[in-house]
Structures are given as structure tokens and as C-alpha cells.
């Protein structure tokens, strides 16, 4: 699929392999939902093409725009949108391709067999979302579009829904596009990820490498790693636009003089009140923006970097946080050993 939607500043192109699940990540307003709406035929792109297998659904050059109801594209939103005037079985049997028998089958598939006679208002959020999934699957779509289907659910309901999604997505070999803000969804459901920033693709690739070494700001924040952008030199030193240098181990793809990113984990960052002396480490002075407790560790998030990238994060123990007496607005030093930093070519 390829789409340019000028009114929303979106220009993207991607493929999803047969039977694969693609996770679309990105900040709000990056164009994720617009991409799904183009696939579903709800938004006419200014230029672009949508193809499922050898079926052309949208081709602006040839003037093709198949109506939504003929696309065989299932859509599941954060709001389950079960038809309130129909009981659960009739909801799942709604699609012309579905039937009461199909409804019983799909309700069993989503662990909701016993809910058939209920009205939508008698369901919990998690039950309603599983029924909505059954309804979408009963229409036998070629592609399933999932727009944050787990976002409104509590932890237990989301876990149950994730289990069901994983089962039906893995088995039927139907491809899916999933919009999510949850790392767990990506790890458990997706094969590939694609990060959108401001209507453009910031990075794309299989889940594991992207999450291990993200090249985009959003990807880094999502995966929970620190990212510093700059220019690489052949010795594994990265220089930022504002003149700080980062020492690390360069990846094989790094080209001297090209733009690159330095990545390191928050846990590898040490925090000091006073500038540490005579150490070969990378040390930067930062202002604390926020402190956040995450189980036994305290996440110290610094102010935004000079190029607007998310602030660096450090994970320290509660004990050292107490000894340092940190609070937002304090000036401190973040220090990282060179062997904890990897340098990669940026996308």
C-alpha cells in the first residue's frame, strides 16, 4: 500500500507479507489511523495504491476506488461498536458472509460462546471487544485492521484479548495491521514494526532488530532506550550538532561523516551531583524533567535534548535516588561507559 494524503500531511508506503502482522507505531497525529482508513477505503488518498494479493482496491492513477463493503477488510477500533439493538449472536452473524452457525463458531474461537444471548450493554469491556473481534472475523476479511483494540481494557481483559488475537492471527494466515502504544502488543503479536513520525516512515523492520536498535526518536522511546543523534567518525565517536561527543562501539554499518545514532540503555546510565573526575566515560550535564518509580528502580528523565529528541533517561535504585536527593529542575551529570554505547547508521 502506498498513500499520499495531503490534507493530513501523510506520505507512506509499506507492504505486509501474507499471514504477517505489522505493528504501526508513532506519536499521536503521525498518520497511523489515516493509513488504516486508506486501506479500509474510508479516506481517498490524493495519490496512492492499495493492493491485497492481486486485488487492486485503490489506484488513484487508474481511478480505481473499491467501496468499503467490497474490500473484505476487517476493522476493529478501541470502541467495540457492537450494534446495541442486536444481541451478541446477531451482531456476529451480521456480515453477509456470516451466519448463525458461523457466529457460534467465531464466538467459541474468542472464548465468548456463552455470551450469545446477551445484549451488548450487558457485556464488560473485554467481552465486548472479543465479540467485536468475532464479528470482524466472521466477515472473513483478507486483512484485519486493528486500531488500538486493547487500549481501553484493564490488564486482565487485555491479556485475555491478546491471547485470543495471537491465536486467531497466527492460525489463519491472514495479514493484519495493528496500531498500538503498548510494547507488549508488539512483542506478542507483531512480526514487523513500522514507526511513523509526522506522516513519514521513520523506520521499519522486523520486531527484534528494531526494538534492539531503534533509529527513530519514537522507536527509541517506545523500546525504552536512549538515543542521541549526530555524525559518526571512524573511531566510534559521535558528535552532536551542539558539540557533545559520545564514545561507543560502532556497528558495521557506520560510515564516517554520515549521520548516526548512539544508543544505550537507561540502566547503563549513572547519575552524579558533581562532575565525575578523570573518567573515560561519556558525561553530560542535564536538567531533570521528571522522576518516575518503576518497581524497584527510579527512572530519571532529563529535559529534551537540544535537537528536540526525547530527554535521556537513567534508571537508578531507589536507594541512590534517596542519597542524591533528586528532584525535577536539578542539574546533574549523566555518565555512561563507552562499552555500553553502540553507534548505528541512522535511517
Amino acid at each position, binding site marked *: 500500500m502506498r498513500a499520499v494524503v495531503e490534507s493530513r500531511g501523510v506520505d507512506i508506503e509499506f507492504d505486509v507479507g501474507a499471514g504477517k502482522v505489522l505493528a504501526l507505531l508513532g506519536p499521536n497525529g503521525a498518520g497511523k489511523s489515516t493509513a488504516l482508513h486508506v486501506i479500509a477505503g474510508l479516506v481517498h488518498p490524493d495519490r496512492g495504491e492499495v493492493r491485497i494479493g492481486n486485488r487492486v482496491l485503490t489506484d488513484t492513477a487508474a481511478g480505481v476506488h473499491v467501496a468499503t*463493503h467490497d474490500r473484505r477488510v476487517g476493522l476493529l477500533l478501541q470502541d467495540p461498536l457492537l450494534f446495541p*439493538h442486536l444481541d451478541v449472536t446477531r451482531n456476529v452473524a451480521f456480515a*453477509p458472509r456470516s451466519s448463525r452457525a458461523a457466529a457460534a463458531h467465531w464466538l467459541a474461537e474468542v472464548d465468548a460462546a456463552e455470551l450469545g444471548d446477551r445484549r451488548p450493554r450487558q457485556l464488560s469491556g473485554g467481552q465486548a471487544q472479543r465479540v467485536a473481534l468475532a464479528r470482524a472475523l466472521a466477515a472473513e476479511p483478507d486483512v484485519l485492521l486493528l486500531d488500538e483494540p486493547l487500549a481501553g481494557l484493564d490488564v486482565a481483559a487485555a491479556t485475555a484479548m491478546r491471547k485470543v488475537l495471537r491465536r486467531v492471527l497466527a492460525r489463519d494466515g491472514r495479514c493484519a495491521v495493528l496500531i498500538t502504544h503498548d510494547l507488549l502488543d508488539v512483542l506478542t503479536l507483531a512480526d514487523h514494526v513500522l514507526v511513523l513520525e509526522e506522516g513519514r516512515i521513520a523506520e521499519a523492520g522486523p520486531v527484534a532488530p528494531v526494538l534492539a536498535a531503534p533509529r527513530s526518536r519514537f522507536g527509541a522511546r517506545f523500546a525504552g532506550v536512549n538515543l542521541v543523534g549526530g555524525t559518526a567518525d571512524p573511531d566510534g565517536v559521535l558528535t552532536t550538532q551542539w558539540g557533545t561527543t559520545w564514545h561507543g562501539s560502532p556497528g558495521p554499518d557506520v560510515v564516517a561523516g554520515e549521520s548516526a545514532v548512539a544508543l544505550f540503555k537507561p540502566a547503563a546510565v549513572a547519575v552524579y551531583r558533581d562532575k565525575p573526575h578523570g573518567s573515560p566515560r561519556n558525561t553530560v550535564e542535564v536538567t531533570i524533567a521528571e522522576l518516575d518509580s518503576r518497581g524497584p528502580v527510579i527512572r530519571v528523565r532529563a529535559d529534551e535534548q537540544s535537537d528536540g529528541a526525547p530527554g535521556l533517561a537513567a534508571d537508578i535504585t531507589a536507594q541512590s535516588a534517596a542519597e542524591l536527593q533528586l528532584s525535577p529542575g536539578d542539574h546533574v551529570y549523566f555518565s555512561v561507559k563507552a562499552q555500553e554505547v553502540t553507534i548505528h547508521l541512522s535511517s
Partner: protein
Amino acid sequence: MLPRWIFIPAAIGALFVVLPLIAVAAKVNWLHFWSLITSESSTTALLLSLKTAAASTALCLLLGVPMAMVLARSDARLVRMARPLILLPLVLPPVVGGIALLYVFGRLGVIGEYLNAAGIQIAFTTTAVVLAQTFVSLPFLVIALEGAARTAGADYEVVAATLGARPTTVWWRVSLPLLAPGLISGAVLAFARSLGEFGATLTFAGSREGVTRTLPLEIYLQRESDADAAVALSLLLVAVAAIVVVGLGSRRLRGANAW
């Protein structure tokens, strides 16, 4: 928390609405009430009123539901421009509406000329009563339904389309059932407005007993000759309107938790 003084104008307003109704009830000659409202001219007028109001409500539904849905769902510039025009009868004096209808369906009207040539006469017939009532009631139904359709949003229709349902199927199986509560209250409003229609009917349909003389026209006529009959019929109209409005009220309550 409301300031206390606000209850004073509110109470005066309520009295202003209720007092005339009480005054009518007090004026009624209860001794002859039954014979007054069952006189032949009264029952004829009441039956004609109920029949024409029912017909115009049906016509309002037939035309108003599609109008409301187009207004609620379409962003086209033409639709946006047409909206105030369509709702104009809401603020137009009914007499003016009646005159306007005469210039469309009258013997020399834009359409009436051709209808007349084909031997069809509309002005001053029962059909004219129904058209006059529809003209003034339609905006009430459209505005009530449009609000309901906007509140419901298009999300259910989008989901139905992704399930493979064609637009016509979506219309019958999703859009209309979801609109049902708004549909009922809109129809009741249109029926009540039709029942009370006077100005447009008199201008466009005249006052022929049994043909175009509806209950409000009968009341106005009786007021000259037989004040007791006029008061009794007024109370009857109030009673019918009250039944309709109370029916609407309870329907509305049910509508909110209908599903």
C-alpha cells in the same frame, strides 16, 4: 447550584403557560360538555384532524428521515447551503406558508397549472390540508432526527460497511434501528404540530366542513356562534395534545435506555 432568585422568573413562566389552560378548563360548561364535543360538526372535525395529522406524519417520516440523514452525514456545500432553507418553515408565519403553497399547487401555481390541466385539483381539498400540515411539521421532525443522527455518529455505519454490508443494508439494519428513539419523538412532535395547524390550512385549503375544516378551524368558527362549543373543543384539543406529549415523554425516557 442555582441561585434562589432564578426560581421566581421560572415560576412566572410556568404560570404563564399553565394558567390559560386552567382558565379554559374553568370556562367549560361541564353540563353540556359531552353533547358539545359529540355534535356532528365536532366529531367530523376531530376525525378529519386525526386522519390528516396521521397522513402528514407519515409523509413527514417518508421525506424527513432521508432529509435528516443527508443533513447529518453529508458535508457537501450544497447540503450545507440548503439546510437553513429547509428549516425556514420553522420560523415562517403559517399564513405565509399557505400562500406560498397556493403559488405552487394552486390552480395557477408552478406545479398546479399542470396538475389542473391533467384534471387534478389540490388546493381546497383534504390533500391540501395534509400538504399544509406537512409543510409546517417537516422541519420539526428533520431537526429532531438530525440531532439524533449526529449524536449517534457514523461509526456504526462504518463498521457495518467493513463487515461487507451494502449501503442499503446498512440503512435498514443499522442506521434506522439506531435512530428509532429519535424517530418516535420526531414523529410525535410532527403529529402534534400537524394537529394544531391553522394558518396554512385556512389559506391553502379553506374551511369546508368535512373536507378541510380541521379541529382548530372548527374551534375558530364556533367561537363566533357558540362560545361554549369552542371552549369544549379547545379542551378536547388540549387533551389530545397532552396525551401525545405525555406519550412522547415516556417514550423518550424509554428511548434513552431502549437497548
